[in-house]
């Protein structure tokens, strides 16, 4: 038996197994690539060769005939990645400090607002950079900020972002896991498709493009949530915040805004 040759068609085991395997492969390929696409035709079906390419996964132009539909609102044009602006130079921060002199009126001397406009100290650089571009390109509009951003160069915006990101963030007074966090912040509302605020905006995890919210004035947070909900603010990527805010109740909007403003602890401001 040791001189029995295996790799020859005279060996029955070889013949049966090799031909059997090939037969199964060929028959299943014919069914999967030719027969099924021909009997279950979709709108793009255009002959057998086309069906084979489609079943193989060759990408096809789905809207070959018509132009893409333009959205009614102006949307953001920034490609946000987790790595955007994660390395900045000291020069950039220095230039940003000079440029930021014109921002102090609303955003405070050291990036801490006293005027219900957002704090910028310690905010992610990529977040500030994105919002400036959106103001400049019109994806987000504000009577004060839109003209301010109009004449900034790309480098100006990077420098400003780097400067504010470099400022010390006010120390966190509590963690999200403390019992004070309202349910919308810690758990979201799974059945209404709302993720917890804290999984993107810090506390549990952070996601690229989501601002750090801790310490933000309640009036500002609330006005932005309402703007997302009623569709007057549309520069959120893929409509993430519009979908969240639309599904939030007015009570949840208030609770989230108050929580991030840290007004829960300081009794006097809570009401």
């Amino acid at each position, binding site marked *: 038996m040791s001189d029995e040759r295996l790799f020859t068609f005279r060996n029955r085991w070889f013949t049966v197994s090799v031909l059997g395997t090939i037969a199964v492969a060929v028959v299943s390929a014919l069914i999967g690539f030719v027969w099924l696409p021909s009997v279950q035709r979709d709108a793009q079906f255009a002959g057998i060769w086309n069906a084979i390419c489609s079943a193989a996964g*060759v990408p096809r132009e789905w809207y070959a005939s018509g132009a893409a539909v333009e959205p009614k609102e102006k949307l953001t044009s920034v490609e946000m990645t987790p790595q955007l602006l994660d390395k900045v130079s000291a020069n950039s921060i220095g230039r940003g400090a000079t440029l930021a002199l014109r921002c102090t009126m609303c955003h405070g001397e050291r990036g801490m607002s006293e005027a219900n406009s957002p704090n910028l100290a310690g905010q992610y650089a990529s977040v500030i950079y994105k919002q400036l571009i959106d103001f400049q390109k019109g994806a987000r509009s504000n009577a004060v900020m839109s003209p301010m951003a109009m004449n900034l160069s790309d480098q100006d915006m990077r420098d400003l972002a780097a400067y504010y990101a470099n400022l010390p963030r006010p120390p966190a007074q509590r963690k999200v896991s403390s019992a004070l966090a309202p349910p919308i912040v810690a758990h979201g509302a799974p059945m209404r498709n709302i993720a917890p605020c804290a999984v993107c905006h810090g506390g549990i995890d952070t996601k690229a493009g989501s601002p750090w919210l801790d310490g933000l004035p309640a009036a500002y947070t609330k006005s932005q949530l309402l703007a997302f909900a009623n569709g007057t603010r549309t520069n959120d990527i893929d409509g993430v915040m519009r979908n969240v805010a639309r599904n939030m109740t007015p009570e949840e909007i208030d609770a989230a805004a108050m929580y991030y403003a840290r007004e829960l602890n300081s009794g006097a401001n809570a009401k």
Partner: protein
Amino acid sequence: MFNSKRLVLAHFWLAFIAFGVALLLGAWQMLVRSPLHPWLQNPELYYRSVTEHGTVMGYAFPTLIAMGFGYAVSELALKRPLVGLRFAWLGFWLVAIGAVTATVPVAMGLASVLYTFYPPMIGNVFYYVGVVFVVVGSWVWVALMSVNLASWKRENRGKPIPLAMFATVAGAYLWGWTAVGAAIEVLFMILPVAIGWKTTIDAGLARVFFSWTLHAIVYFWLMPAYIAYYTIIPRAIGGRLYSDAMARISFILFLVVSMPIGIHHLFADPQVGSGFKFMHSVFTTLVAVPTLLTVFTICASVEIAARLRGGRGPLGWIKALPWDNPMMLALAFSFVMLGFGGAGGLINMSYQLDSTVHNTQWVTGHFHLIFGGAIVIMYFVIAYDLWPHLTGRALQSVKLMRWQLWLWFIGMIVLTFPWHFVGILGMPRRMAFYDYNDPALAAQALSVVISVVGGLILVVSAVLFFIVLIRGHRAPLVQPEAFRFSRAVHEPRTLPVALNSFALWLVLMIGLTLVNYGYPIAQLLARSDTAVPAVPIGAQR
């Protein structure tokens, strides 16, 4: 005769300790996402736990069992000392160090990427380095199994390879080849990003490479259980193996057709064409064949045992079986779970039916029933059977063993049946909390609570398992009789070369892989527009 007892014991103990820890995490996960527990304030803890549970149960535990059992089989079946004992220890330490290296970042919350680590999620680099160490350690074992068989063959030209060794080497080759997919993914796609050399990754291609590993790894987990069915159970219950040739054909079929089927995990993925999904579905169906052959052969072997014990009648022989023997119990439990789990699997693998259960709790229920149930209960059998030979002391707690096996069986059924049910109701998997107060989910609450009870029963069973083993180490020394594998009704004196070698089957395995994976991989490799930004996990400030 048995020279590498310490080596085998080290593998088994490390495997079972890791298993015990991961089992507790699993039970905790069942509890915290059930209505019995308030919602976690920090859901990240849940994902941390799921990652550790999956990494240990999926990679470390079964790999160590397969390696330890493989070394034991090599010595006991070939009746010669293990060649390359030093390398075997090297492999063991690689797996042990890898498991610890992967665990640390997971425990720190830096790698909550779940055990499938699908990009673009990118965790801490040490998690992947740890996984690579585990795989490299197991490849040492693959090489040693091959070397030991080759050296035996040189001295035993033309003789039939003992079935246990034939099956072990088939499992080793299957693992060697199937691990290549994830190895390519980790080494060439994920590590460059995790180290920081790159910031983008082709998530679709990475998933295709992972699917290459992800399904056949299941058959690698399953191999020790099947080897126990064929070569331990018939002897342990006083019978004979019905057919040696049928056993070899089953293992060969596993080797050939369990590899090119992983895309059935990607039925909902857009980057793979429907034609390839269909082909993978067809080959997945074929994997049912060796399982059905096995069920037939083992039932026939069991019937032989029953008739030797005086069983009569078309079904009356079942009563004559040694039901007080833990091995008999475990086999019956394993087959029942394999039957239900396999039936559920046929639904998962169907390109059409999958869409109703894709990514629901059904899937988690399915693989816990098959792996945690049918396979792990056979790992217990292997341990019970080998322990006296490893320690030189008898396992005397037979009653406790029966309790342990019963509880594992009941616990697994109570755990997984409601799990399947809520999956059909549409409950998604991999979520830290569910709003059971919502009318749409309220009906699922009871099923989830029943599942939790199942999980707790499993913990009790595992405690009994450890008690049995530890008592075994403290029992008086005995001289166990020489270890025997089952004998077949017709012992093979000569075999066709096809059933006594691997070359043809390896060629078919690799060929089918190229046919079923070649184009999807080549197409994604060739395109320049498939990269997406990596999403670092655990990078919060």
